């Protein structure tokens, strides 16, 4: 069994990021959500329609971009997108409109007549995204949508996903944390087929956050002088001139330190507040889960 006990809920107009290591079960989860795989047990509902019992009805509200975009390389972009739209039940009179719209959204207007097999990886990825949004579905599932794109394209696609998130619900899987930071409203972390963390991405950044800063003094005083400053709980030297200073969140000794540095000519070079990056938080969450799992395994036999 690869995935178990996973419960995801997606609200309208929300972008949900599914995070996890390689092999954590992100792709499998998405395949189940889109009907490419059936779960052994459990329920999947899309807009209130059960995916397992009424698959045709439920899938009409769904757009899916798998890890590898599902392209027919011998067709040109227009033909392919028209095929995708008709598959999703778009009627002929609307086809021209939705095609135009999807191409504009994904920056494909100039390549409409090109054969997909001759396009670059980035353009193929865009065609894949266009295919997922062409029928204006309520739920869009994107599996690593920015893989293989150049930085400018990544930014465009992220903006596009952000825009899509206003009107549709989007689930995207990724292992790029900057993507989560810039795009997602909420984060779920999967590890070994289980959900281990779920919160808004804003909260995640503050997860177990510490207050403190790194200070660089060209002419540093002895360590204990710094430790004695009111409010500082811990000083850790990071070299001859650099110190990591931790303090309690409620009283910030920054101004005290600054005025002391002025008085005693410590030659302050730099003062950077400590801010946990999402990356650190992610590593911390997954690591702590790993050790917890290891401990419980040891206890069982």
């Amino acid at each position, binding site marked *: 069994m690869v995935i178990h006990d996973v419960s995801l809920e997606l609200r309208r107009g929300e972008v949900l990021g599914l995070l996890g290591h390689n092999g954590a079960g992100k792709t499998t989860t998405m395949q189940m959500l889109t*009907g490419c795989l059936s779960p052994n047990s459990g329920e999947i509902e899309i807009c209130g329609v059960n995916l397992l019992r009424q698959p045709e009805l439920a899938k009409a509200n769904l757009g899916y971009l798998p890890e590898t975009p599902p392209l*027919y390389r011998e067709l040109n972009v227009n033909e392919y997108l028209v095929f995708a739209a008709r598959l999703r039940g778009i009627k002929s009179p609307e086809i021209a409109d939705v095609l135009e719209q999807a191409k504009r959204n994904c920056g494909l207007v100039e390549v409409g007549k090109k054969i997909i097999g001759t396009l670059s990886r980035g353009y193929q990825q865009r065609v894949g995204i266009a295919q997922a949004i062409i029928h204006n579905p309520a739920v869009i599932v994107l599996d690593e949508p920015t893989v293989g794109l150049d930085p400018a394209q990544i930014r465009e696609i992220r903006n596009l996903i952000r825009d899509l998130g206003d009107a549709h619900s989007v689930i995207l899987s990724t292992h790029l944390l900057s993507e989560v930071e810039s795009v997602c409203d909420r984060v779920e972390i999967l590890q070994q087929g289980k959900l281990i963390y779920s919160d808004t991405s804003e909260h995640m950044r503050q997860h177990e956050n510490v207050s403190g800063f790194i200070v660089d003094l060209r002419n540093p005083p002895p360590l204990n002088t710094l430790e004695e400053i009111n409010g500082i709980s811990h000083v850790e030297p990071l070299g001859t001139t650099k110190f990591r200073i931790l303090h309690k969140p409620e009283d910030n000794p920054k101004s005290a330190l600054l005025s002391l540095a002025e008085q005693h000519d410590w030659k302050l070079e730099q003062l950077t507040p400590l801010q946990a990056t999402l990356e650190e938080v992610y590593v911390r969450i997954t690591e702590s889960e790993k050790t917890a799992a290891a401990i419980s395994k040891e206890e069982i036999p």
Partner: protein
Amino acid sequence: MIRLIALRELRGLFAMPSTWFMLAILQFVFTWFFLNTLQTFLEIQPQLAQLANAPGVTTIVAVPLFNMIALLLMMVVPILTMRLIAEERRNQSFALLLSSPLPVRYIVLGKFSGLMAFLVLLMSGVPLMIYSLELGTNLDHGLILGNLIGLLLLTCSYVSLGLYVSSLTAHPAIAAIGALAVLAGLWLADVAAGENSAWHMISPLNHFQNFNAGLLDSNDVVFFILFSAVFLLLAMRRINNNRIYG
């Protein structure tokens, strides 16, 4: 929806140079065989004229031609069916169909009818060639019609078998070899079995022989329909099971 998938299948086929190459080669083979038998007929015509109940031009020219096509199909169909599902799996484009709001039977029937349309087109030159003889002689329309129906049913059975084998794997080459092996096995079962052996019953080619001789037996029609239906249903089942077992 079935038509949509069938048209996509045709569009994909005609986008490949190998398809056109195959069309050209097979057309050449059919025509060469046709002209060859026609020449033989013209050479032996004086002797035939002396016989009391001599076979006509249809029996001597058209019947062997249809028989040859039936044998050739055994090798041509696996090459075409291998791509149907196996290649979509390999290119990962199958996810588009699976995540679309349409039942699996539409996917299977769409692919089946797309390839059938192509094969009908591939063989459409044959009746035209035969009917060109109408300019100089009288043809046995019943015999030709019987053969055409038989050939169509035979193609249906081959395509559905190939489609099923293609749904078993993600490697087109394995799908082609597998389908060819099964078809060749069924053919050998017919050729190698004894006089009254039951093995003849399971061979599509054996059932085609009656059509080839101008005999329209409902037994054979039912056999072809059942054969095709069983493999199409198995293919649908296989795709559904794939969702469960990955």
